[in-house]
């Protein structure tokens, strides 16, 4: 098997307190997409920084495109592209100047760098804005330029660190289309995201990180199958009531039982009869749900059942 990215036992601590990576193992097959999923502070970005040679791990080893990230950093750097929240474009330079600069720093001749800059601008629909300083670009345009900058030398391995965070749905779709096109052409992609939908759509395999460690790994379908095929959401008036309802099912229920605030989530793989059973149980205990929905499990549910917390950052978490 050919792995474009391999990491074994990566550990990185900041200061004496924060253990950002606590023994991360990863393997990404050539030409596939790995989605690195986890909340803020779970170690996604630190993993990317180690793999892109901008951070040296305390212990563990990793290779990218066959090169050791610590011993052969320049060979790694020639094989990768990096785009995302922490690798920026220069806002004082125009789109064309940004791409040409990156090309030159990738050791292309000025002529090649200029030619490729123009081709990339064309491809990413930025030709009209090519000679404007990139600070005048919209968020979506800037992100496209950022990704274009990561593709100047057509790297075999591409790292995208939260590539669509803060983008509107249209720009997000455009980024996704680019990733799909690159993968179809054989590029290996490691993508970090907080959006489960994004991992679901793009990633062949998903690794879930929490507090610097891998807590689950598999295809989207495999991760979801642990939760069953169908989930019944039952909303109650408050978390207490939801908890009381959950206690009716814990231990006896054939499938997952998860409480999230005032919401109770039950796996109901056996079909309508299991739904009716659930409702009868609630009725006999005198607990009336205020709303109800049947749906397929999302990766969010996977994360919740693995960690007891939601993956996506809510407004309160950020303040």
């Amino acid at each position, binding site marked *: 098997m050919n792995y474009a990215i391999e990491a074994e036992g990566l550990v990185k601590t*900041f200061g004496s307190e924060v253990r950002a990576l606590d023994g991360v193992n990863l393997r990404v097959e050539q030409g596939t997409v790995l989605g690195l999923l986890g909340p803020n502070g779970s170690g996604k970005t630190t993993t990317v*920084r180690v793999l*892109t*040679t*901008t*951070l040296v791990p305390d212990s563990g080893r990793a290779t990218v495109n066959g090169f050791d990230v610590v011993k052969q950093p*320049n*060979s790694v*750097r*020639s094989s*990768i592209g*990096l785009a995302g*929240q*922490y*690798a*920026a*474009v*220069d*806002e*004082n*330079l125009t789109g064309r*100047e940004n791409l040409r*600069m*990156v*090309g*030159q*720093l*990738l*050791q*292309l*001749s000025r002529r*090649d*760098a200029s*030619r*490729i800059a123009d*081709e*990339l601008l*064309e*491809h*990413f*629909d930025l030709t009209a804005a090519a000679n404007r*300083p990139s600070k005048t670009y919209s968020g979506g345009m800037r992100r496209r330029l950022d990704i274009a*900058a990561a*593709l100047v*030398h*057509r790297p075999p391995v591409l790292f995208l660190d939260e590539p669509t965070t803060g983008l509107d749905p249209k720009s997000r779709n*455009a980024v996704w*289309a*680019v990733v799909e*096109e*690159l993968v179809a*052409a054989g590029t290996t992609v490691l993508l970090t995201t907080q959006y489960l939908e994004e991992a679901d759509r793009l990633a062949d395999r998903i690794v879930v990180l929490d507090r610097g460690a891998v807590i689950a790994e598999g295809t989207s379908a495999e991760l979801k199958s642990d939760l069953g095929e169908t989930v019944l959401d039952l909303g109650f008036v408050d978390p207490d009531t939801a908890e009381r309802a959950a206690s009716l099912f814990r231990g006896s229920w054939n499938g997952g039982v998860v409480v999230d605030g005032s919401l109770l989530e039950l796996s109901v793989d056996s079909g309508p009869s299991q739904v009716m059973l659930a409702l009868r149980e609630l009725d006999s205990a005198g607990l009336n749900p205020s709303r109800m929905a049947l749906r397929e499990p999302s990766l969010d549910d996977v994360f919740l059942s693995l960690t007891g917390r939601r993956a996506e950052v809510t407004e309160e978490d950020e303040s």
Partner: protein
Amino acid sequence: MTPSVLPEAAVQMKRSRLRRTIGDAMVVTERNLIANLRIPESLFFSSVQPIMFVLLFRYVFGGAIATPGMNYVDYLMAGIFVQTVMFGSINTSIGLAEDLQKGLIERFRSLPMARSAVLAGRTTSDLLRNVVVIVIISLVGFAVGFRIHTNAFAFLGSVLVMLFFAYVISWGFAYIGLAAPNSEVAQLMAFPILFPLTFASTAFVPSSTMPGWLRAFAEHQPVSLVINSVRALTQGGPTARWVIPALIWCTGMLIVFVPLAVWRYRRIT
């Protein structure tokens, strides 16, 4: 997305380590100079303060300061030149702190470029910026009565001394810019360092009126030595006694500051 295809990979040049180091530094220098040209306000406003200093000392305080053997304006300009290029070097720390903050350094560090290029490019572009500043201040000086009483070569020599000094200070500020949490703090950190060095010096007044302890500091610290060199080279008098210790100081500081900044750059987390 447009249906056009993505460009094929181009050939990466095989260059010697030295050519690559110089080439990469030139690319970064060019990038910084473009940014300077895009924000002419920055150069304009950083010239306003020294111009106001010239006017303030020339016309407000100057009459009350006795400078035996030369006109006050001739005495003053050496101080103004050195003060201005030294404050101009703060740009190095602001620029690097901004690049760090905005994620550009992260991009640079993920590219197969020479590790020294970001620092070398930044200090070089700030050196060129200081050349422009010296031209502006010279014109202002000549307009308010400053005259060179030596010759053109000596004046050129004084410019080289100032630029070398400013370049050294830039490397010191490179360290500060990389260590500061953000560009605002990087700028604030410069002030307590530069202020005493500028004013407890022979920049604006002769040291003879200072109390003994201050006079001892003012006469031996590097900023005064550089100012005295510039003054001797533009106004006449013995030059070697100032220029040689000034150059020794500058070289010594360069030997300390460059490795310090590079060390700091390598251990960015």
